[in-house]
C-alpha cells in the first residue's frame, strides 16, 4: 500500500509542476510545442537527455540484460554514436528550422524538398513509429503499478491508470512541464540506479566483479555475443540503425528546435555520452537479477528490475523505485503523445483543410486522449519486450535519415520524388518483415551467417537508399532535359 501511495504522490507532484510551469506563458502553438524557442543549454540538455532515461532504460535495458545478456550492450553504444552525428547534423537542422519558423519535423522535409506531400508522408511515418514508443512507456507504467501493488492491480487496469495520468499531464502542461519534470526525473533515476546497481551485486554476490564471474559460471557465453542470431553482426547493424535514427524521432527532432543557440548541441555531444554511462548500473541490476530471481521469460523480463527490488527491499523502497519509474515514463510519454497529436493536427488535417494556430492547438489537444487510447490498447493486447518495441519504432523512423541528411548538403542530389520513393520503399520493407514475422535467416538460409543476422531495419535502409538514388537519378535527368530544351 505504501508503495502505491508514493507512486501516486510522484504523479501528483509532476502534475503540480506542469501547472506551475504553464503559468505566465501564453499557450500558443509555438509555446505549447517548442516552448517559444527560449530554452537555454540546461533545458535543451534535459529535454534531449530526457530521451536517455526513459522506461526503456530503466525497465527495458535491465530486462534485456536479464533475458538476453550481451545484446543489451548495444544500448550503451548507440547513444554515444548518435551524439557524434548530432554534433554535425543538429546545428544545421536547428538553424534552418529557426530561419523558417518551423514547428515540426514534417515542416522541415516539406520546406526543404518544397513538397507538402512529402511532409504528409513524413508525418505518417512519424506517427506510426511513435506508436510502439508510446506503447512501451505505457507497458512500463503498467509493470510498475502492477509490481508496486504486489499484484493486486492487474495489468490492464494498471496500463489504463498510467495512460490517464500521462494524458492529463500533456493537456495541462505542454513542453514546459516536460522540461521541468525532467530535472526531477533525472536526479531521481540517477540516484536510484546508482544505488541499486552498486548495492544489489554487493549484497547478493559480494561485488560487481564477483557478480559477473558468477553469471559467467552459471550461464557460459551469456556475457559475449552469440555465434548466430543476436551475433556481432546484429550488434553492429543495430547500433548503426539506432544511432542514425536517434534524432529522427519526431519529438527529438522537434525538441531541438527549442534551443536558443546551436552551440548547445555541440556541447551536448561532449557531455551526453558520459551522462549515459549510468546505464552501466542498470545492466548490473539486470545481470544480478538473472542470478537472484531467475525464471522470467519473454515480455515478463520487463519485470526483472522490479522483481529483484521487491525481493530485496521493504515496501517503501519499492515505492521510491516505482515512483522514479513513473517519472521515467511520464516525461517521454507526454512528449510522445503531444508530438503524435500535433503531427496529426498540423500535418494531416491542416494540409487538407487550413486551420488557424488556435484551431490546430485545440484539435491537437482533443487528439491527445485518442492517441492515448490507441497506445493503451496495444500495451494491454501486446506481449513484446520493451526493447523489441523500441527497435520496431527505430526500424520505421530511421527510414527518414537518408533524405534528411542529403537535404543538408550544399547541393542536394536527392529529388522530392527520390526522397518520397526511398522512404516508401524502406517503410514497406519494415512493414513486410513486421507483419509476416519473417526474418532474413528464414528468408535466405543459404546466405553467410553475418548477412542473415543483420537487423532488418538496416536491410530496409539499404533498399531505401538504393531506391532513393535510382529515382533521384531518373527524375533529376528529366529536370535537366526540360531546362535544356528551351
Amino acid at each position: 500500500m505504501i508503495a502505491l501511495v508514493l507512486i501516486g504522490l510522484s504523479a501528483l507532484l509532476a502534475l503540480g509542476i506542469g501547472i506551475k510551469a504553464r503559468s505566465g506563458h501564453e499557450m500558443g502553438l509555438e509555446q505549447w510545442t517548442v516552448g517559444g524557442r527560449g530554452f537555454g543549454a540546461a533545458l535543451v540538455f534535459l529535454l534531449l537527455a530526457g530521451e536517455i532515461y526513459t522506461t526503456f532504460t530503466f525497465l527495458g535495458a535491465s530486462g534485456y540484460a536479464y533475458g538476453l545478456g550481451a545484446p543489451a550492450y548495444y544500448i550503451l553504444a548507440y547513444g554515444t554514436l548518435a551524439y557524434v552525428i548530432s554534433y554535425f547534423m543538429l546545428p544545421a537542422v536547428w538553424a534552418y528550422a529557426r530561419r523558417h519558423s518551423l514547428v515540426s519535423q514534417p515542416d522541415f522535409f516539406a520546406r526543404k524538398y518544397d513538397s507538402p506531400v512529402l511532409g504528409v508522408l513524413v508525418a505518417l511515418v512519424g506517427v506510426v513509429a511513435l506508436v510502439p514508443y508510446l506503447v512501451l512507456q505505457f507497458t512500463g507504467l503498467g509493470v510498475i503499478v502492477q509490481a508496486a501493488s504486489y499484484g493486486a492491480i492487474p495489468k490492464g487496469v494498471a496500463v489504463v491508470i498510467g495512460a490517464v495520468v500521462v494524458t492529463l499531464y500533456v493537456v495541462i502542461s505542454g513542453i514546459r512541464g516536460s522540461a521541468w519534470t525532467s530535472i526531477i526525473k533525472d536526479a531521481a533515476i540517477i540516484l536510484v540506479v546508482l544505488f541499486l546497481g552498486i548495492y544489489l551485486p554487493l549484497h547478493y554476490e559480494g561485488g560487481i566483479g564477483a557478480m559477473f564471474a558468477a553469471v559467467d559460471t552459471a550461464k557460459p557465453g551469456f556475457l559475449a555475443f552469440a555465434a548466430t542470431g543476436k551475433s556481432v553482426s546484429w550488434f553492429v547493424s543495430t547500433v548503426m540503425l539506432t544511432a542514425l535514427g536517434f534524432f529522427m524521432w519526431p519529438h527529438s527532432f522537434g525538441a531541438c528546435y527549442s534551443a536558443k543557440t546551436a552551440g548547445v548541441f555541440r556541447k551536448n555531444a561532449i557531455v551526453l555520452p558520459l551522462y549515459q554511462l549510468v546505464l552501466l548500473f542498470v545492466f548490473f541490476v539486470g545481470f544480478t537479477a538473472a542470478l537472484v530471481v531467475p525464471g522470467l521469460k519473454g515480455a515478463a523480463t520487463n519485470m526483472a528490475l522490479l522483481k529483484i527490488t521487491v525481493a530485496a527491499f521493504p515496501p517503501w523502497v519499492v515505492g521510491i523505485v516505482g515512483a522514479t519509474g513513473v517519472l521515467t515514463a511520464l516525461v517521454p510519454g507526454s512528449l510522445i503523445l503531444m508530438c503524435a497529436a500535433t503531427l496529426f493536427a498540423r500535418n494531416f488535417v491542416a494540409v487538407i483543410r487550413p486551420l488557424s494556430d488556435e484551431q490546430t492547438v485545440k484539435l491537437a489537444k482533443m487528439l491527445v486522449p485518442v492517441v492515448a487510447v490507441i497506445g493503451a490498447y496495444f500495451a494491454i493486447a501486446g506481449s513484446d519486450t520493451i526493447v523489441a518495441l523500441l527497435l520496431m519504432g527505430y526500424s520505421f523512423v530511421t527510414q527518414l535519415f537518408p533524405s534528411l541528411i542529403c537535404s543538408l548538403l550544399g547541393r542536394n542530389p536527392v529529388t522530392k520524388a527520390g526522397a518520397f520513393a526511398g522512404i516508401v520503399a524502406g517503410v514497406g520493407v519494415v512493414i513486410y518483415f513486421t507483419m509476416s514475422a519473417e526474418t532474413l535467416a528464414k528468408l535466405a538460409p543459404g546466405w553467410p551467417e553475418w548477412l542473415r543476422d543483420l537487423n532488418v531495419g538496416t536491410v530496409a535502409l539499404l533498399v531505401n537508399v538504393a531506391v532513393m538514388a535510382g529515382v533521384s537519378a531518373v527524375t533529376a535527368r528529366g529536370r535537366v532535359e526540360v531546362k535544356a530544351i528551351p
Partner: protein
Amino acid sequence: MKGIGWLAVVPFVGMFAGPVLHNSVTPFVLGMPFILAWIVLWVLISSAVMALIYWLDPDSGGAES
C-alpha cells in the same frame, strides 16, 4: 564536413572494432566482461574526441555567443 570533422569517424571504428575482433567474455576488465568494458572505454574516448573537435572547430566558438 571540414577536415577536422573526419575525426568523428574514430568513435565508430573504435566502438565496433572490439566486438568484431575479440567477441569474448574474457579477459575481465575492472570486473566487467571484456566487450562491456571495451564499449565503456569507447564511450569515454568518444566524449574526448568530441571535446577535441569542439576545441579545434572554428564554427563552435562563433555560434556560441
